C-alpha cells in the first residue's frame, strides 16, 4: 500500500476504496432524512417543561395522512421509538403479555403509554411511577412518530419533548 518512502501508492488507495465500497453495501441510500422536514411539531409543550397531569398535549402535522402511507400518529411516553419499518408493538416483543401469536391484549399498548391516534392531541393522564428515571434525570420523554395502518413506523420524521411532573419521580 506504500512505497519504500512511505508514500501512498495508487494500489493502496484502490484497496481502501474497495474495502470501503464493500462496507458501504451495508448502508441504505433511500428513505433517509438529511434535512429536518418540520412537518410534525409539538405545539404546547416546550422541551424541558414542567406540567401537571392530566395534560392535553397538542401537536400539528403539516402533511396529510393517507391510508397507503402514514395513516396515524404514534405517541410514545418514555419509550425510544422503533426504527422505521418496525411496528410500535415490537417494543413489547419481550413482554410476556404479548407472547401470544395474536399479539398484545386489547388496550395493552395504551396501558404502556404507546398510543396510536389520528387526532393531533392526546391527554397525558399518567406517567410511569416507580420506574428508574435515573437515566433521564427525572424527565419524561414524549415522542411522536408517523405510523401506517399496521402500526409500522413510517419514515424518520418525529417530534420530541421532555417534561417533568413535579412531585412524581423526582
Amino acid at each position, binding site marked *: 500500500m506504500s512505497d519504500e518512502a512511505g508514500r501512498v501508492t495508487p494500489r493502496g488507495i484502490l484497496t481502501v476504496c474497495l474495502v*470501503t465500497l464493500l*462496507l*458501504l453495501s451495508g448502508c441504505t441510500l433511500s428513505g433517509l432524512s438529511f434535512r429536518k422536514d418540520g412537518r410534525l411539531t409539538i405545539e404546547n409543550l416546550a422541551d424541558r417543561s414542567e406540567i401537571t397531569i392530566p395534560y392535553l398535549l397538542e401537536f400539528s402535522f403539516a402533511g396529510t395522512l393517507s391510508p397507503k402511507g402514514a395513516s396515524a400518529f404514534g405517541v410514545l411516553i418514555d419509550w425510544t421509538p422503533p426504527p422505521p419499518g418496525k411496528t410500535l408493538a415490537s417494543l413489547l416483543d419481550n413482554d410476556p403479555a404479548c407472547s401470544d401469536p395474536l399479539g398484545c391484549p386489547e388496550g395493552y399498548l395504551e396501558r404502556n403509554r404507546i398510543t396510536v391516534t389520528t387526532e393531533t392531541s392526546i391527554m397525558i393522564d399518567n406517567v410511569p411511577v416507580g420506574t428508574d428515571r435515573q437515566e433521564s434525570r427525572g424527565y419524561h420523554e414524549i415522542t411522536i412518530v408517523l405510523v401506517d395502518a399496521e402500526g409500522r413506523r413510517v419514515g*424518520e420524521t418525529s417530534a420530541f419533548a421532555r417534561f417533568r411532573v413535579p412531585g412524581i419521580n423526582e
Partner: protein
Amino acid sequence: MTALDPAAEQVLQDVAVSDLDRARARAMLGLGKTGDQHTDSRSLREVITGSKAGWYTVIVLGLLGLVGTLQGYAFGVMAPEIARTLGITRSEIATLNAVKALATAALTIPLVMTVQRTPRRAFVTIVGAFVWAVFGLMTAFVTTLAGLAVVLIADGATSGTQTTMHMPLLADSYPPQGRVRILSMYAGMGAGGNIVAPLTIAALTTWAALTWRGVFLFTGLLTLVVAVLATRLRDPGFGHLDTEKVRAASVAGPVQHGPQLGFAEITRRLMMVPTIRRQLAGWMVLGAMAVPLGTFITFLLDERWGIGPGGRGILAATQAAVALGMLAKFGKVGERMLRDNPASVVQLASVFIAASTVATSLAALAPYFAVVVVLLTVGSAGIAMLAPSLGALQMGLVPAEMRPHAIALGGLSAGFGGLTGSIYLSGIDRRFGVAGAIVALAIPGLIAALIVRSCAKTLESDIDHMVTDLVEEARVQAAVANQAPLPLLALRGIDAKYGDLQVLFDIDFTVAEGEIVALLGTNGSGKSTMLKVISGLLLPSAGSVRLSGTDITYMSAERRVRLGITQIPGGHAVFGPLTVVDNLRAYAETLDLGARALAPEIDRCLELFPALGDRRNQLAATLSGGEQQMLALTKAAILRPRLLLIDELSLGLAPTIVGGLLQRVEDLRQSGTTIVLVEQSVNLALSVCERAYFLERGTVRFSGAGKDLLQRDDLLRAVFLHGADAASTRRDKGAP
C-alpha cells in the same frame, strides 16, 4: 584458554559514554544544556519555517485533530436524535461510545506494529484519515444499531491514528528545541475544535436545518477534504532531529543500526523505564477522572443549572479559548523548563492536574453559575496543558522508533482507567447524585497528580540511561562496521531487580570468543540473576547486554536462543516426565529442524555421553543426578550454542562425575562454544577457567586471572566458609 584481547578492551573503553557525552546528547534532545552549545532562542515561526516540514505538517495534523473534535462533539450532541431515529436506547448509545473508545485504544496496537520497523507514520495517518472520513460519511447512512456499531468501531480504529501517530510525527518533523510549542500549537488546534464545533453544529442544525444524518454527511465531507489536504504528508524518518542526531554526533562515520526489536520487546523495554511506568500509572488514574468527567459535567450543567446543548457549547468554546491562550503562553516556558530541569515539567504537570481536580470538584458545589464557569474553565485549561508538557517529555524519554508504542500504552492505560472510573462514578452518582460524583473525582485526580509528581524522582536517571544507550549503541555499531575486535559478550552497567529488590548493581562483565569464564560467589550474590539477564529471562533495569556488539538487552529469550545463547539452569535443567530423547527433541524444536535432520543431531549429541545413549527411552526423572546433568549438557549441545551459560553444574554431584562433566564442557569449548560457568566451588571452576569474576551482594568484587583470585583470601574465605557450612548441612541431612 583465551583471555580478553587488549584490543577489545580498548574498543570497550572507546565506546564508553562519559558524563560530557551525556550532557551533549541531552542538549541535542532539548532535555539539558551545555556551556559550549548556544541555546536555541528562535521564535516558533522561525522554528517552523526553518524546518523541512514547514507549516504544512503541524497545520494538517492540527486540522485532523480539529475535525476529530468536531466529529466527537457532533456525535455527543446528536446522540438523542440518532437514538430516536434508529430506535436505540440511550444505554445502547453509551455502550457504543464505550466500544468505540475501546476500539480506539485496542487498535492502536496493530497500528503501532505497522510502523515500528519502517517509518510509515505519515502513510498510516493519510490512510487512516481517508478511512476515517469514509466511515464518518457512512454514519450518515446507517439504519440499524449493528450498522452504527460497525461504523463507530471503524471510526474509533482509524481515529486511533491520531493518538498514536501525530505526536511522534510532529516530534520528528520539528527540532526538539521547539517541541513544546509545536505540541502546544497542535493541542491548541484540537482545542479550537471545541470553539468551531458548537458554532458549526448550531449553524448546520438551525440555519441549514440538517438532521443528524446531514450533520454527519457534512463532517464526513469535511474530514475527506482534510484527508486530501494531508496526502502530501511525508514521514521524516525516525528521530533524525534528535535521537538519530545524537547517534550521528557520537561516531565519525555513518550511523549503523543493529537488529530491531519486535513489538513485545519494545513494550517490555518501555516498561523497564521507571518514569514510563509511573507515567502510565498516572494516565490510568487520570483516565479514571478525565474520561467520565465530561459526561458528568454535562449532567451537572443540565440538571442543576438548566443549561442546554447551546449553552454547553458556548461554555466549551469559552473553555477552549482560555486553554488556547494558556497553551500559547506555555510553549516557550515549557521548553525552557525542559532544558533547564526536566523534572520541573512533571512537577508543573502535577500542579495542573491537582488544580484541575480541585477546581472541577469545587464547581460541583459552587452556589453561583459564574463561579461554576470560572472553575470549570480553570479545570479544563489545566488538563489541556498536559498533552504538550507530558507529551514533550515522553517524546524525549524514549528513542524515536518507540514513541508510538509509548503513546499507545498511554492511551490504553487512560482507556482502562476511564472504564474503571465510569463504573466507580456511576455507583457514586446513584447514591450521591451528579455533584457527589464530580466531587468524588477529586480522589483519582489527586492520586494521579501525586503519581505524575513522583516521575521527577526517576526522570533524570532515565534520561541519562536513554542517552547512554543511544551513544553507546552508535559507537558499538560503528566499531562493528569497522570490524573492530569486540568481545563475544559484554555487559555494561547492569542493574537488575526483582520487584523493588535490587539484586545487581552496575555490573560490567565481558567474555571473549572461545573463552570459559567462571562466575563465582556465595549464594545470593547475584550469579544466577546475571545469567538470567544474559539469557533474557530477566530484563535489566539499567545497562546493556551485547553479543558481538549487537544490543540484545531487551531481546526476548527466544530470539537470544536463535542468536546462539543457551542456558543450563541450575538444579532443574531437564523435563522429568519426558524421556531422554524427547528432552532433546523439545530443545531442538527451537531450531525448527525437520524430523529427518533431527535424528542424526540427537545421535551426535548422545555421543558426548554414551551412557545416556543406552537410556535414550528412559524418563529423565529416573536418571541419577549426574546423568541428569549429562542430559542437560547434551540438550545444550544440540542447539550448537555460541555462548553456553551453565548454572551450578556440580551441585550435589560426586567429584568423579563432576570431573567427567567438566571434560565435556572443555570439549564443547574446543568445538567453538564460549562458556560462562557459574560455580560455588572455586577450585572446580578454576580447574577449567582461566579468568573469573567474583560477585558479592550484586557487585563485582574481583575480575581477572583465576590464579590472582586464589590469592584473595578476603574473598574466598566467604565461599569456603559457606561451602563448609553447606557441606555440614548436607551431612546432617544424611546426604553423601
